[in-house]
């Protein structure tokens, strides 16, 4: 690639632009990734709020256990608030208790409750208390597992992180554009002699502005890619650490495919915005010069 007419990559003011952009893009991508993870968690909370578990503690050991399960299913299927009900099979149950009780040994026959996963109507406002009473009319010790308390706190945290992440991401991107504006203006002033010479040779403002455009695009792409990859490493490391602390009742935190696409677009969009900003700043400044 041929040199720019103006030595923008050699002057103190503009030579560090790629690294400044790398740093700001790193922070912006990390912030937006946190927002995306929080958004994904909220989506899962939403879905989980619509799922409860009916537990029949003694159905696993009593002779009428299968009949109890069938009666409960009948009550659930009659309820307008219930979209579907599914009995958790033995194997799935074993997987759930294995972290606490270990693998089932040959001949071991532990009395386990019978569980039914119930999906509620997402548009409805179910009265879980009333539903539980109707279930107990059929099976006295039936309970509905509700996770409102811990879910509520986690939801508030997720909302907070999403709002902060998005705000921080936008602010950092705006800071990047502001820095491009400042550096472009300063560079024009520093290279006044060369700009004047080019004008004497007939260069129009558009030609001169393209010098800054090209440099901003090069810096933006270079810095953006560095910042993006560094941010991704950070995010992956944090996600890996979080997943190692996960409890079975917790939500699995992570980035959805759409989040990866969105984050990958951030450095490209940032570079294009920086290019546009450099052009507008240069044209405006050149228009004011004699």
């Amino acid at each position: 690639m041929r040199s720019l007419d103006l030595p923008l990559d050699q002057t103190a003011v503009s030579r560090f632009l790629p690294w400044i952009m790398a740093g700001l893009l790193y922070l912006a991508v990390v912030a937006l990734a946190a927002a995306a993870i929080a958004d994904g968690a909220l989506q899962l909370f939403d879905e989980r709020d619509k799922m409860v578990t009916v537990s029949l503690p003694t159905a696993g050991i009593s002779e009428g256990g299968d009949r109890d399960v069938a009666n409960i299913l009948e009550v659930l299927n009659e309820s307008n608030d219930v979209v579907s009900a599914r009995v958790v099979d033995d194997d799935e149950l074993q997987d759930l208790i294995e972290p606490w009780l270990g693998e089932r040994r040959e001949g071991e026959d532990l009395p386990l409750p019978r569980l039914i996963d119930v999906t509620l109507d997402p548009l409805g406002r179910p009265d879980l208390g009333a539903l539980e009473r109707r279930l107990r009319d059929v099976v006295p010790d039936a309970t509905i597992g509700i996770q409102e308390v811990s879910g509520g706190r986690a939801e508030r945290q997720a909302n907070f992180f999403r709002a902060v992440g998005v705000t921080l991401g936008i602010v950092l991107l705006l800071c990047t554009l502001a820095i491009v504006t400042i550096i472009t203006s300063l560079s024009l002033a520093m290279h006044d002699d060369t700009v004047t010479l080019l004008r004497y040779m007939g260069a129009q403002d558009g030609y001169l502005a393209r010098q800054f455009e090209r440099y901003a695009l090069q810096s933006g792409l270079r810095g953006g890619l560095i910042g993006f990859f560094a941010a991704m490493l950070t995010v992956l490391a944090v996600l890996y650490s979080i997943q190692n602390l996960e409890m079975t009742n917790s939500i699995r935190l992570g980035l959805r495919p759409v989040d990866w696409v969105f984050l990958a677009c951030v450095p490209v969009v940032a570079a294009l915005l920086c290019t546009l900003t450099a052009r507008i700043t240069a044209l405006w400044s050149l228009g004011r010069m004699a």
Partner: protein
Amino acid sequence: MTVSIVGVMLQLEQIAMRYAQGPEVLHDINLTLDRGDFIFLVGPSGAGKTSLMHIMGLIHTPSRGSFRIFGRDVVTFNRDDLSESRRRIGMMFQDFRLINHLTAFDNVALPLRIGGAREREIKELVYEMLEWLGLSDVMDAKPPSLSTGQRQIVAAARAAISRPNLLLGDEPTSNIDTQRARRLMRLFTELSKEGTTVVLSTHNDELIDRYPHPVYHLEKGRLTGQTRTPTQLAAAD
């Protein structure tokens, strides 16, 4: 802007020039040059040759008088007109004004790039020019690593590369050897034959004597007269 390049190339009438609030450095300059004219501008140091060249090159604005170039009065120029007219002028500055971080190749290529020429065409033209002027070995060198004479030739090549309608050379051969000076003059002469109006300011009597072009004398900011070369005078006798 429609540019007329037939007939009168530039016309200066009662031109005067002052810098800031200082005294006039040029007084009542009257000069008309046609397409293809080739003149020398001579005078002692401080006579105003560079100031006059800068007015003709649309670098400075005269403080009074009328200046028409390419068939139009410069007071009617907007920014675009000014840029377009400047692109039709090749200016060789006395201090060269090369861009130090660009190679000799890129310096010479500048007018073509500013004019929007394609890179392929630029490559061909610049290679040809620098090779003809004996600078093919230093095409990739930057001005700080070139000798004064080499820088002067690069500056001349840059002024001539786009075959401008008007070529202005401020002391174009002051730092180069005779052989290269003749090459340069041959280049300017060829351009003049093709219709470029050439104005060279010089102190070099040998140059003036060798090339029989009109000589305009500038003294204390005034054009005091026009003479022919000694050879022309001798031929006339």
